[in-house]
């Protein structure tokens, strides 16, 4: 059974601080997706990483896929209150169906 461990589960920081969220697994994923979800809404895709060692940047967000494609990280620089939300990583283990395994999520609160 593939599992995706996401940490930390909760994070409360002040505006301007940096933070990193981690997703780790013992399984190899064909791709990994990061989503951000606000209360009462569906997850919104931030990025998909596919290649081992890949780094993608989205403004103040930096996403990295581990060389072995078993882990990933999301780093936010100079967090803002608008970054508040639930961050979910989801690993795809391929196959024809492309089912995702979700981490439990990181609930981020950025205080002004």
């Amino acid at each position: 059974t593939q599992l995706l461990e996401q940490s930390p589960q909760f994070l409360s920081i002040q505006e301007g601080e940096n933070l990193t969220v981690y997703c780790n697994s013992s399984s190899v994923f064909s791709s990994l997706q990061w989503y951000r979800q606000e209360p009462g809404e569906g997850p919104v895709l931030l990025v998909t990483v596919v290649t081992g060692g890949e780094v993608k940047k989205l403004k103040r967000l930096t996403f990295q896929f581990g060389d072995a494609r078993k882990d990933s990280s999301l780093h936010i620089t100079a967090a803002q209150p608008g970054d508040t939300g639930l961050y979910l990583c989801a690993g795809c283990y391929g196959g024809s169906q492309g089912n995702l395994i979700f981490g439990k999520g990181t609930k981020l609160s950025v205080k002004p």
Partner: protein
Amino acid sequence: DAMVIQNPRYQVTQFGKPVTLSCSQTLNHNVMYWYQQKSSQAPKLLFHYYDKDFNNEADTPDNFQSRRPNTSFCFLDIRSPGLGDAAMYLCATSRGGGLETQYFGPGTRLLVL
């Protein structure tokens, strides 16, 4: 423009009264998924359709059924909702499985009285 649409956004039903949630997509994607998400938890896959092929997760209760009459629409039927079925229900689509990214709708929040 919305690509994955879910109606209604909020649904209230009574204990044991059948309820249907709907999802439509304008992406012409082959795969449609239904997830259940309870408070402060990750989405849990219930089942998905690859075109007309239905794939049920092993631990999805029989109380949950799905229909996909055409490419654009997919329905989630809860035959006899219990209090434990109150949750956010998320629909997602992907082009063809495999490496394909999943795109989520805004969800329907179900309340069971």
